[in-house]
């Protein structure tokens, strides 16, 4: 197993980081926090650089790269605290559309993302649980398609996305199976959530008997649809895990620099063993999260049978990492880290979002327990 980036992957990582250092300094996140600035200009730049269509086939106007490259960009965006709909569009919407197979609708959507920067998102969670078993949102067969009814929560960029892929449960024909219906955002009642970290955007959506014509059915209810949705969710999960690992690495770097520079008792505080040991542990946590994240991304890229387990491992590790790094990062910065003026809090607030969204570390450990056969005793 080779878990080191290739030359091309490293080059991509360096290029993305360079772009974001200019286009997305911490000052941008601060402007979002303080003045309600938006990530729209940054998104336009990403579109110009073809990032949204990074993992879309060249035949559909994309760059034709794979899951590893997609996750590397997510990691850099986490590192840079980038606002905007990249996670929603490129790591959630596109993978679900790709699971739909080669339909005219799927082709059209992929082309619109790759060439026009269409903002799309996925409405899956209900009651903030990303668990297919709890989906009650119903797709009822109608004369020319379906009628969609129900509530979805924590939809990434749900207030700004143009197209929403809604995962619903078919109620009559193909009873019980999941369907994915494409709904324009204007058809939903949108309730944006006010988050501690406004660089992220979540919204709750309500669908009240929305008519979805046949040509807007992305994935029709059938025995294989659960797995198709799960596969897309795996991509989203690994991307978010690596975005979280990226933010964690940045907090680690800030903290390391701070303890080298801050002097007390006539010496840098980083020379004290109590702090050294904590930094060694933080560093280990960041490297663990990165290594498991890359492993998971690789199982997606190679479509390995271990991909579902690997996605849970990556999310568990990202959750554990942010837990240690956010707390210790703040503690080791001391008083200055406790101020609004210092940039640290921008990173801390972002990194916390990495755990509960798309299933917390605890929830993914529960999934691993079931996979290990420990769940039903």
């Amino acid at each position, binding site marked *: *197993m*080779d*878990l*080191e*980036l*290739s030359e091309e*992957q490293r080059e991509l990582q360096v290029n993305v980081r360079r772009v974001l250092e200019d286009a997305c300094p911490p000052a941008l996140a601060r402007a979002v926090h303080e003045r309600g600035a938006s990530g729209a200009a940054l998104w336009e730049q990403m579109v110009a650089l073809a990032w949204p269509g990074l993992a879309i086939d060249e035949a559909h106007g994309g760059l034709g790269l794979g899951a*590893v490259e997609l996750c590397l960009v997510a990691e850099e965006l986490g590192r840079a605290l980038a606002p905007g709909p990249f996670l929603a569009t490129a790591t959630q919407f596109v993978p679900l559309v790709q699971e739909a197979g080669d339909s005219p609708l799927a082709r059209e959507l992929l082309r619109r993302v790759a060439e026009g920067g269409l903002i799309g998102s996925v409405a899956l969670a209900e009651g903030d649980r990303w668990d297919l078993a709890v989906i009650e949102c119903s797709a009822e067969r109608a004369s020319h398609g379906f009628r969609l009814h129900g509530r979805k929560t924590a939809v990434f960029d749900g207030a700004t996305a143009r197209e929403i892929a809604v995962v619903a449960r078919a109620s009559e024909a193909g009873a019980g199976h999941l369907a994915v219906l494409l709904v324009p955002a204007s058809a939903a009642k949108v309730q944006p959530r006010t988050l501690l970290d406004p660089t992220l955007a979540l919204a709750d959506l309500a669908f009240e008997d929305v008519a979805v014509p046949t040509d807007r059915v992305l994935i029709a209810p059938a025995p294989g649809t659960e797995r198709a949705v799960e596969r897309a969710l795996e991509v989203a999960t690994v991307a978010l895990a690596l975005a979280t690992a990226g933010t964690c690495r940045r907090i680690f770097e800030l903290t*390391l620099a701070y*303890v*080298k520079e801050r002097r007390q008792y006539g*010496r*840098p505080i*980083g*020379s004290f*063993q109590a*702090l*050294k*040991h904590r*930094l*060694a*542990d933080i*560093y*280990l946590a960041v*490297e*663990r999260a*990165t*290594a*498991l994240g*890359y*492993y998971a*991304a*690789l*199982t997606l*890229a*190679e479509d*390995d049978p271990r991909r579902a387990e690997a996605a849970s*491992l990556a999310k*568990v*590790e990202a959750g*554990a990492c942010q837990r240690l790094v956010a707390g210790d990062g703040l503690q080791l910065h001391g008083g200055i880290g406790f101020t609004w003026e210092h940039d640290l809090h921008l990173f801390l607030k972002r990194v916390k979002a990495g755990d509960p969204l798309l299933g917390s570390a*605890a929830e993914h*450990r529960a999934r*691993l*327990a079931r996979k*290990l*056969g*420990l*769940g039903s*005793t």
Partner: protein
Amino acid sequence: MKLSFDAPVEVFRREFLDWLAANRPSEAEMAADPARSSAHLPDWSRRWARRQFDAGWLVPGWPPELGGRNAGPVEQLVYLEELTRAGVPRTTNPQGLGIIAPSLLDYGSPEQIERYALPILRGERAGCLGMSEPGAGSDLAALSTRAEQDGDRFVINGQKVWTSGANYADFCFLFCRTDPAAPKHRGISVLLVEMDQPGIRVQPLPEIVGRDHPDLNEVFFTDVSVPANQLVGKLNDGWTMANGSLAHERGMVWLGSVLGLQEAVARLVAEAPRWLARMGEIERAVSIDQIVRSYVDAQAARCLGHRGFAKLVKGGSAPEQALMKLMSSEARQRLALAAAELQGARGLDASAQAGPFTEWTPLEQYFVTFGGTISAGSSEIQRNIIAEKVLGLPR
């Protein structure tokens, strides 16, 4: 990045597996005459070493005359993986094969290689490493065992402790002070000392479990005289070798400890259901979580190890290597504790019979895991090394 190895590596794996199946010592052979210490060479172990050496499967990365076949690093990884999986010890004198022989090949004279390194590789002689002392553990450079030059001989006086296998070893690769006036790192030399000679007393130091089968020893040296040509490398240059020795040790162990961790987790997962079945709902959930955390640890160790290894193979530096010993030894300890606690009061039982090949109970295993977090640079020293050498924090 790639999950699998290239086709030629898989051909190599096949070739080794075929050879292993035809040449490995049998379970019965090993169980009938188990190795009694880390420097004990039962007859099967001697024959096994010789077969590996002659076939070029002892250290595949080395040339044929040293028991290898000039294999690349990825092939060596595959070789170690399969050997570990097969449950066959590569050697019953790990410090000889892993540290003493490579150090002698790097620093020893042709005569020393002939008399010590090659016999280790061929399974003819076993060595122990004389490093730690009562006053020099983590601070190894503080060692005070003295070797005074007297004409064409050295006269050794002092004491070593925690010396694995000294009770069975043929000779000792001994770190001693040859210049007490020099700064502590610059007055240390290495001598090859035959164990069977006047003035050496070995006192076994039974361990925390398995009192009747000690591997650790105290070794006392009183006016032990060795010829000057037993000096390895240059006089007062021993610290270079101490660092080199530990590097050999670390380069070798990460894969073994990761595979060991994975195997231990697999065993825990397999045995857990019968203990979980006795628990109430909430207690069961808490216990399951402990097991899953250990499973995640093992997977993280595997990925981190492979990532560091891939960096090294591609010619880069791999700070991951510095993390592996700390991480896998502590993960192993957490796992052992989870396994012991899972059994409740039943976990307090002693193992049925004490022997060198005893299946330790989980609680005994837990105590044994402290060997991993204390020896070869304790976890605290590992954190210092990571903080100072990798993260660049000031001393």
